C-alpha cells in the first residue's frame, strides 16, 4: 500500500480496514459505511454487539463474518444488556483495554431496545452504544419506527396516511440519563464521526452515538446519493451534528455553511417524501428551524458559561 497523500484534502482517517468486502448490504448502504468508519476509529481491540437489524445480515451469514473484530449477534432488544455483560466480564477478567460497541438500528434503539439501553446507560456501563438510524424497520422491509420522520412514507404508513408523529429525540433521552457522552454523527462527515468515536473510546462509562444512515431502498433514494443526503441533512439542520457531555454541555460540531439550505433540498431527493405538500414542507421547515434554534441556544449557553 502506498503512503496516502495529504495535500488535497486532509482526511485524518486511519488507513487500516476493519471491515471486509463481500457483505450483503444494499448498494449505497449508509450503515455499512458507518461501521467502516466506526471501526477505523476504535481499532481492532473492539468487541461488537449486534442485535437484530440490517447489520445482523450485513455482518455475514454463518460461517462468515464481514468484520475483523469479534461480533456477538443477539436478540433485538438486548444490545444494552448484552454489552453490559460483556463489559462487566471484561472488567472482571482484567481485560480493561477492549472497547465494547453495541451497534443497533433505530428499531432496536428507539423502540424495542430502549429499555435495555436506558437501563445500561443509567448504570453508566462502560460501552459505546451506536444507533445507526435509517429511520424505519428496513430489515423487515420498511415499516415505521419511532425514528421515522413526520409525514414519511413506510409500508405501514402509506402515502394515504403517512406517519403522523414526529421523530423521537433519542439523543435528548440519552442526555437525560446524564451519561458522559452523547453525540450525533453521520457518514458525510467522516472526520467528525471518527473524532467522536475516538473521543467516546477515551471516556469511561456510557457513550451514545446517533448516526444518521441513509437506506436507498427505504428512503427511495439513489444509491449514489447517500453521502449527499446526509450532507444535506446536516446542512439543512434536519440532523445537526452536536454532542452533549454529562447531559448538559452542548457543542455544535458542524455549523451549516452560509446559514444552511432549505429542508426541501434534502426532502426532494427521497421518494418517501414525494407526496409532501408545500404546506407540509413548510411545516417541516418550521419545526427544523425551531429545533435548531433551541440547540443553538443550549450550545451558546455553554459557550457563555465558559
Amino acid at each position, binding site marked *: 500500500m502506498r503512503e496516502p497523500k495529504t495535500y488535497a484534502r486532509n482526511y485524518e482517517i486511519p488507513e487500516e480496514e476493519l471491515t471486509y468486502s463481500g457483505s450483503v448490504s444494499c448498494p449505497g448502504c449508509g450503515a455499512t459505511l458507518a461501521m467502516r468508519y466506526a471501526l477505523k476509529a476504535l481499532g481492532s481491540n473492539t468487541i461488537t454487539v449486534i442485535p437484530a437489524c440490517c447489520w445482523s445480515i450485513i455482518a455475514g451469514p454463518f460461517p462468515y463474518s464481514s468484520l475483523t473484530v*469479534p461480533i*456477538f449477534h*443477539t*436478540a433485538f432488544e438486548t444490545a444494552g*444488556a448484552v454489552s453490559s455483560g460483556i463489559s462487566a*466480564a471484561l472488567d472482571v477478567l482484567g481485560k480493561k483495554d477492549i472497547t465494547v460497541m453495541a451497534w443497533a438500528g433505530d428499531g432496536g434503539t428507539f423502540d424495542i431496545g430502549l429499555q*435495555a439501553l436506558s*437501563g445500561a446507560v443509567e448504570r453508566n*456501563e462502560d460501552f459505546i452504544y451506536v444507533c445507526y438510524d435509517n429511520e424505519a424497520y428496513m430489515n423487515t422491509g420498511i415499516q415505521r419506527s419511532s425514528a421515522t420522520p413526520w409525514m414519511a412514507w413506510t409500508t405501514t404508513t402509506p402515502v394515504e396516511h403517512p406517519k403522523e408523529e414526529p421523530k423521537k429525540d433519542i439523543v435528548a433521552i440519552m442526555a437525560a440519563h446524564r451519561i458522559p457522552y452523547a453525540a450525533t454523527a453521520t457518514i458525510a462527515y467522516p472526520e467528525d464521526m471518527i473524532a467522536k468515536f475516538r473521543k467516546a473510546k477515551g471516556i469511561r462509562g456510557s457513550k451514545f452515538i446517533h448516526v444518521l444512515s441513509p437506506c436507498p431502498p427505504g428512503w427511495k433514494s439513489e444509491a449514489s446519493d447517500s453521502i449527499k443526503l446526509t450532507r444535506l441533512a446536516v446542512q439543512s439542520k434536519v440532523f445537526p451534528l452536536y454532542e452533549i457531555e454529562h447531559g448538559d454541555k452542548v457543542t455544535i460540531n458542524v455549523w451549516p455553511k452560509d446559514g444552511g439550505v432549505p429542508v426541501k433540498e434534502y426532502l426532494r431527493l427521497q421518494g418517501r417524501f414525494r407526496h409532501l405538500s408545500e404546506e407540509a414542507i413548510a411545516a417541516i421547515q418550521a419545526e427544523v428551524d425551531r429545533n435548531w434554534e433551541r440547540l443553538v441556544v443550549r450550545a451558546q449557553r455553554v459557550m457563555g458559561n465558559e
Partner: protein
Amino acid sequence: MRKVVTGNYAVSWGAKLARAQVIAAYPITPQTSIIEKLASFCANGEMDARFIKVESEHSAMAACIGASAVGARAFTATSGQGLLLMHEVVHWAAGARLPIVMGVVNRAIAPGWSIWTEQNDTLSQRDTGWIQFYCETNQEVLDTTIQAFKIAEKVFLPAMIVLDAFVLSHTSEAVDIPEQAEVDAFLPPYRPPLKLDPEDPRAFGALVLPGEYMELRYKMQKAMEQALSVAEEVDREWGERFGRSWGLVEPYRLDDAELALVTSGTVTGTSREVVDALREEGVKIGLLKVRLFRPFPHQIIREMLAGVRKVAVIDRNISFGDSGVFAQEVRAALYHADKRPPVFDFVAGLGGRDIVPETIREIVDYTVTHDAPTEEFTWVGVKI
C-alpha cells in the same frame, strides 16, 4: 461449615463457591433474597464478581449471555413472570452454547397474581435447551448449583436449579457449606475454546441458512444427551469429594414396590413421610424422585419403574389441554418399556396450595382403588 440458611441463600452460597464472575439479576419475589445475598457478597468483597443490577429479567439473561460469551462464569436467578419475560433469551443462551447457571424459584403465573409455588414457569422453558434440576432440600440446592456449573461447562449448555417458592426458597435448614478450596478443586475455572476475543475475532450467532441449521441443532441435542452421563459423573465425583450424591433420579423404597409415586421438588420430602407411614401400614409403595428433568433420564426411569404395577405422578403444574408435564414425560419414557404400568397423573398444589400428607394419601388411595386411570389426569383438592 454447617449453617442454617434458606433455600435462596443456598443458591447464593452455591454461586459464590462456584466463583461466579458476573451476576446480572433483577429482583422478583420470591427470588429476591438470592440476589440480595449475592449483592452483599460482592459489596463486601467476599466475591470477586461484577453484579449488574439490570432493569429486567430479560436484560439479566442478556447480560449473562454477554458475560459468558466473553468467557466469564455467569449467574442469574429469577422466578415466575421474570423467567417468562426472559424466555426469548433463555433460548438464546442455549443456542449460543453458553454455560450460564440460573437459580429459578418456581412461582405460579399471573393472572391473578400469585407468588406461590408451581412449576409452570420452568416447565414452559422445557424446550429451550437448558439443563433443569428440581431440588428437594437446601443442601441439594447448594450442591446442585455448584454441580450445574461443572456440567454446563462440560457440555456447553446452560443449567437451571429449580426450587419451590417459599417451601424451599424461604425455609431455613441446616446446610453443609463446603470449603472454598474443596470446591475449587472440584470446579476448575471456565475456559471456553471459543469466546469473544479480539485476538481470535469471530462472529457468533449469525444468520444460519437451512443448509446448516439442523446440524447445529443436532449438536445441541447431542450435547444434551451427553449431559446425562456428565451429570451422573459429576454427581458421583461430588459424592466422592463431599460425601453426598443426589442421583439423576432417586428411588426411595422402590425395590419391592407395587405402587410408585413419581415426584419432584419439595413434595418429595412430604411424600417420603407418607411412604414410610404407608409401608408401616403394609402398603407396598415406593417413590421415584425426578431430580434431572432436562435432559430427561428416560432409560433410568424406564428401568426403575419397570417392575411396578402402578405409577402415580404428582404434578405441581399443568399443561393446559393435556395433563401434568412430568406425567407426560414418564408415560413417554415408559412407552418403550416391555411392561408398561398404568400411569396415574395427579395435578396438585398449584399456586402454592399446600401439599400435606393427607393430599398424598388421597392420591395413593385413588391409585390403589383404580385399576387404570379413567381420565388423563386427576385434579387433587380442587373445589369442584
